[in-house]
Every structure is written in structure tokens, then in C-alpha cells.
């Protein structure tokens, strides 16, 4: 019977070699990698990785202990009820930017939920300078009620100094 998917999360100060070393250990024991997301957040490097075939969570943590210690990573492993080939296509993109302040993500995502949008992918960044930071957020999602309720829902943010751009997405398939 196929082993269940595990979700590995690894976080640590960004430096070259983290991905190569972690995946070499997993490949060495015949593990299968599924979908992954890896990115630099702040000065840290964060990995989320579907893995199976390398044992249970404790065994996988044991396999990676040496690499974890060498790179000073934080490691967490969970068994998850996941499956491949479950992609969904976004049909709306929402891009938000403004001077940074607390509450942007909370307020905007609450409005999107109210408008029937399901978030599939969200990336946010803080740019600008330390004394004058700006916040930029890019969201792709599914609009269960169409794009108009989303546009109406986010219009309120203009008064709060947020620029919100809603764009329909259509995947061309041929």
C-alpha cells in the first residue's frame, strides 16, 4: 500500500545548498516528492514539500536531522490527507498595494470571502524603505459569484488609501 503524503516544513537562515542537501537525503532513501513551494521570506528560506515513501514523520525527521543541524533549520513533519492532480484554475487576480499598515491582509481577504472568492495563491511583500514601507499583495483565486461582487466589495478600500486591482483571468487551453 502506498504510504501517505507527509508535509515537510523547513525554515532557516537563507544560504546556498539547503534545497540540494535536503532533497539529496530524501532521494537517497527512495522518497517521492510531490508538489513543493519554496521561497525566501525575510532573510529566511522556507520550504513546504510533499514527501512520501521515506517512512513516518519521526523517521523522516531522523533522516534529516544531520542536515537540519548543519543548516540550523527548523523542521516540522506532518502526515496529511493530500493527493496529486488536484489543481484548480484561478479565474480572478487581485493585486493590492498601499503604504504598509496593520490589517491589510485581514480586511482585504475578509472582503474577498464575503464576495465569494476562494484564494488559491497569495504572495505578499513589504517593499519601500524601513521608514516608509509599502505593502504589496498578489492573490489568485476562484470567484464563485463572478467578478462584479469582488469589484464592488473591494471598492471600499479606495477611501482607506489602498489600491486594489481586480482582473479576470482566463486560461487558454488548446
Amino acid at each position: 500500500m502506498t504510504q501517505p503524503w507527509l508535509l515537510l516544513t523547513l525554515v532557516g537562515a537563507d544560504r546556498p545548498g539547503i534545497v540540494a542537501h535536503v532533497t539529496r537525503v530524501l532521494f537517497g532513501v527512495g522518497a517521492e516528492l510531490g508538489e513543493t513551494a519554496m521561497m525566501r521570506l525575510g532573510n529566511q528560506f522556507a520550504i513546504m514539500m510533499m514527501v512520501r515513501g521515506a517512512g513516518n514523520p519521526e523517521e523522516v525527521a531522523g533522516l534529516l536531522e544531520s542536515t537540519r543541524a548543519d543548516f540550523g533549520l527548523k523542521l516540522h513533519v506532518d502526515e496529511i490527507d493530500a493527493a496529486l492532480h488536484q489543481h484548480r484554475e484561478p479565474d480572478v487576480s487581485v493585486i493590492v498595494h498601499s503604504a504598509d499598515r496593520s490589517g491589510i491582509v485581514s480586511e482585504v481577504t475578509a472582503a474577498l470571502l464575503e464576495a465569494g472568492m476562494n484564494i488559491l495563491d497569495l504572495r505578499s511583500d513589504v517593499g519601500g524603505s524601513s521608514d516608509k514601507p509599502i505593502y504589496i499583495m498578489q492573490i489568485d483565486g476562484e470567484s464563485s459569484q463572478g467578478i462584479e461582487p469582488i469589484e464592488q466589495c473591494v471598492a471600499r478600500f479606495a477611501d482607506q488609501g489602498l489600491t486594489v486591482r481586480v482582473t479576470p483571468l482566463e486560461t487558454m487551453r488548446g
Partner: protein
Amino acid sequence: MSVEPLPILTYPDERLKTVCEPVEQFDPELREFAEHLQHTADLGPSAVGIAAPQVGRMQRLCLVDATRAKRPVDNNGPLVLVNPAITNWKGFAVGREGCLSIPDYTGKVIRAETIELTAQDIEGRTVTFKMKGFEARIAQHEIDHLDGILFLDRLVSRHADLRER
């Protein structure tokens, strides 16, 4: 049409990486194939185009139909393009593409925003079209198939966000 759809080749079938030969014979068999190809696309998951090599016929023929877009877009109607060639390009746009030959994956691709192309219709008559936006994207995707190029070969960063000009 009650006939079975044509089997669609899927990546990494080598035939999808092959440059196709020009169509030289315009006859009833070619018309019948084009109809069969359209029928095959009709039964696929919301396809707006299909190219002959996707069903293993290594000839320069493809279908482009922007009337099937979910939202209305500028279009030239349902087209059968034989021996198409893009003669002019302008602008760039990022868009998400999928492919009948690459199930369960979509990605971002940069395409020319407007194009002009010349081709032959199913009777062999020379035709020219100006296309923009979604229809131009379909045509570029399908003509790529005729040159053995898949959208996977043109993927850009999933966070690419070129604004349309």
C-alpha cells in the same frame, strides 16, 4: 458527429516535439480530418484550439476558435488554419495557458499581444487575419504545436505580471 474522438497525444510523446510538414493536398480527406479534429476538441475540457500533431497527424493544420472563450473577446470566428505563418507581432502580454496534451497543469506564458498571420483555408485559399489578445494567444499556442513547441517550453515565472499594453 457520432464518430469517436481522435486519441490525443500527451507529453512527453516525442511527436509533440516534431516540426510538422506543410499541407500540400487539399481534398475531401483533409476536410474530413478537420471536422474530426474539431469534434475531438469539442469533447475535450473547454478547448479553444487544437493542432493536428496533437492527434498524431504531423501536418501544419490547426483550429482556432476564440468564440468559445468564457468571456466575449475580439475574434475572427471559428478558424481552420492550414500552413499558418505569423507575419507581424506587436506588444507582449502574460497569460495562463493549458493544453489538451498536458493534463492537470497550467502556467504563465508571454505572447505577442497582437499578430497578423497568413494561412490557407481548408480549400487552399490564402487568407490573412489580424488578431489580438486571447485569440492571438490561441493562434500562437497552436502554431507553436506545428513547430514542435509546447507552452512548457515558454513558461515564465509564476509570479510574472507584465501589464497589457
